[in-house]
């Protein structure tokens, strides 16, 4: 049962994100427009111009600068937010690594869109998949409601003193960003209380004194030095450690939020949809999960033991949850909305496959690459996937390990 009363507002994904950011007491927003994220920045500009938020909105001249401003503003102690997609995310790539390495908890909404070339403005996950290894947390939203909820949680997760890592929340371009949905929004005060004021971590300096980790004339310190061969490795290991700790933090923040709002998404890391006794399972991320759920419900009505493992947190990878949920399953199809060229399947397929490798009785795994450049994925296609899974479960044979779903041959 939800603790607070909420009102329902019809919002598109982008508008839901802007609304969430408005409520989170963000100090600095530096952003550059790119389809399909533009509505986030436009809406936020309106809030700023109308005095509805107390935020310094910097209309930067490129995404690279957007991320840079967020990093240094965050290093000065501010809570920062930005949003981008596709080529914008690619342009920021260098700075994503800097954000993670400098331990600045920037929150970013990535409206997942295909990468060029050829240029395409529609949905797929290739933009965020290119940033798998850069040290950012990655959450994926199934619908605008989840986008709204995840943005609010993201500030708490990123700023958590065990994590202190930048976090991106992905929502599918156009499919979610521009589609109107009824979103339950929390009251301003509840969100403000939930995210609190940004707490800056404290670190022990070379004199053994505990000092705040931020740019402050009262406590001079240097951020972003040159590491030679003798220290870089150790600094990277620290990031990895915080990534691992983030697994628990994501769960805890999710649970706190569920108590407040009455809404939960599995355990925060994955959602096991009708998986308990399922024999054939699909794994996917983003809006496709919603479509899969309808197909699963239909199949279940016809007595098929189908299920869905929705991955909400892609980074850090919820290894334990993947293993426990796939133990004993017969056939699993991993759906990838991105292609890792020349890589023996899509990125999510890689991750899932190697995660279950050690299971003594690991399920048969196949990969479906779908929806690139906004190619629609329909319930019929997903039904087709489950039919193939049934065959694999019966015969134990995999005819095609990697397939392209919805592609014209």
């Amino acid at each position, binding site marked *: 049962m939800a603790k607070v009363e909420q009102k329902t507002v019809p919002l598109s994904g982008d508008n839901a994100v802007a609304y969430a950011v408005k409520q989170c007491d963000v*100090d*600095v927003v*530096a952003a550059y427009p790119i389809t399909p994220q533009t509505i986030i920045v436009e809406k936020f500009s309106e809030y700023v111009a109308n005095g509805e938020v*107390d*935020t*310094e909105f*910097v*209309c*930067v*001249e*490129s995404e*690279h*600068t957007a991320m*840079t*401003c*967020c*990093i*240094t*503003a*965050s*290093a*000065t*102690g*501010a809570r*920062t937010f930005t949003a981008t997609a596709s080529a914008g995310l690619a342009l920021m790539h*260098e*700075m994503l690594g*800097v954000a993670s390495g*400098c331990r600045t908890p920037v929150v970013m909404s990535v409206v997942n869109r295909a990468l060029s070339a050829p240029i395409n403005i529609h949905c797929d996950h290739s933009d965020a998949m290119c940033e798998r290894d850069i040290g950012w947390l990655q959450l994926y939203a199934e619908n605008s409601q989840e986008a709204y909820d995840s943005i609010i949680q993201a500030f708490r997760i990123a700023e958590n003193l065990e994590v202190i890592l930048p976090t991106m929340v992905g929502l599918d371009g156009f499919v979610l960003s521009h589609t109107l949905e009824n979103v339950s929004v929390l009251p301003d005060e509840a969100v403000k209380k939930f995210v609190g*004021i940004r707490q800056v971590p404290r670190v022990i300096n*070379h004199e053994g004194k505990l000092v705040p980790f931020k*740019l*402050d*004339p*009262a*406590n*001079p*310190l*240097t*951020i*972003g*030095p*040159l*590491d*030679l061969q003798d*220290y870089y490795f150790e600094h990277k290991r620290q990031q990895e450690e915080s990534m691992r700790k983030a697994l628990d933090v994501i769960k805890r923040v999710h649970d706190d939020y569920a108590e407040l709002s009455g809404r939960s998404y599995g355990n925060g890391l994955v959602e096991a949809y009708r998986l308990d006794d399922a024999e054939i399972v699909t794994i996917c991320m983003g809006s496709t999960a919603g479509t899969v759920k309808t197909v699963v419900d239909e199949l279940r009505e016809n007595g098929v033991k189908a299920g869905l493992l929705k991955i909400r947190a892609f980074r850090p990878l919820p290894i334990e949850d993947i293993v426990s949920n796939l133990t004993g399953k017969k056939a699993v199809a991993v759906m990838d909305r991105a292609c890792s060229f020349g890589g023996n399947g899509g990125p999510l397929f890689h991750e899932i496959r190697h995660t279950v490798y050690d299971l003594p009785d690991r399920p048969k795994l196949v990969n479906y690459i779908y929806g690139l450049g906004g190619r629609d994925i329909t319930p019929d296609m997903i039904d087709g996937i489950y039919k193939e899974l049934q065959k694999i479960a019966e015969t134990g044979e995999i005819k095609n390990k990697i397939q392209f779903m919805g592609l014209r041959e």
Partner: protein
Amino acid sequence: MVNKLSEWKFTSKEFAQTPEKFLSGHRACAGCGPAIALRLVMKAARGPIIATNSTGCMEVVSTIYPYTAWKIPWIHTAFETAAANAAGIESALKILRKKGRIKDEHVDVVAFSGDGGTFDIGFQGLSGAVERGHDFLYVLYDNEAYMNTGIQRSGGTPHGAWTTTSPAGKVIPGKAEYKKPIADIMVAHNMPYVATASISHWKDLVVKARKGMEVNGPAFMHTFAPCPRGWRSKTEKSVEIARLAVETCVFPLWEAEYGEYKLSTPSKVIALKPERKKPVDVYLKTQGRFKHLFKPENKKVLEDIQKEVDRRWQKLLKDCKTD
């Protein structure tokens, strides 16, 4: 703007007592011009200050983990981001002060960047930050090449200079292009304050740095800073060479407030008495990077250099209304 020299305490004896904020123990080469520039600018600071550098010589030599030569809060992110860094810091300070989350005192934000991070890769960020009007001082320490990566040519490398990517070869004798007029480009942004300074004229430099800090809005200071390593000059001559650059009008000193040019005294003196202007050869002879120009087959390049120096000098005099 009024020169508040007495208030600022910039007589040599008083200036010698100002605190050092760019400390000894940095790993710059012996005779490093940029190190002098940075040290002087930091000594000109008026109160709380946060600095940022782009990747480059000064960033690398001053912050080899775990040592830091900065006695103030300082951040480095990437090569093209000095101005963007400053923009982020300034925005955060503004809003946090407004929200009462930090002390209500003015903090100067200074961005240091080499010619690499300013003329070329960082130009977009600089232009954007200036257009948005952030309150910061951008100090360009110009050693006329990408020195940190091994003396490759930049947009700031002068015509005819040897660099590793514009070597003095049999067919092409050094850099074919001319130096980008970066300070003029910044003036064209109609920004509050642009100045050129040289490490040889310390008081002029320090006064301009202070002016830049005090200005409300973006300020840009193009600082001439010889690099003995990259210019193939003697380490003890770095300041002398910078002086010759001013005296030959290779690097005249001036400032501009919202597009209104004004010649600074060291260059004004030459404008008033043109016979004081030294020929460019005197300056070029001091550096090995121009050595090949003194071969008979490269005579034309020398002439071109003098011609261009004269052309830009005349244009400057016109802009300063002293022609």
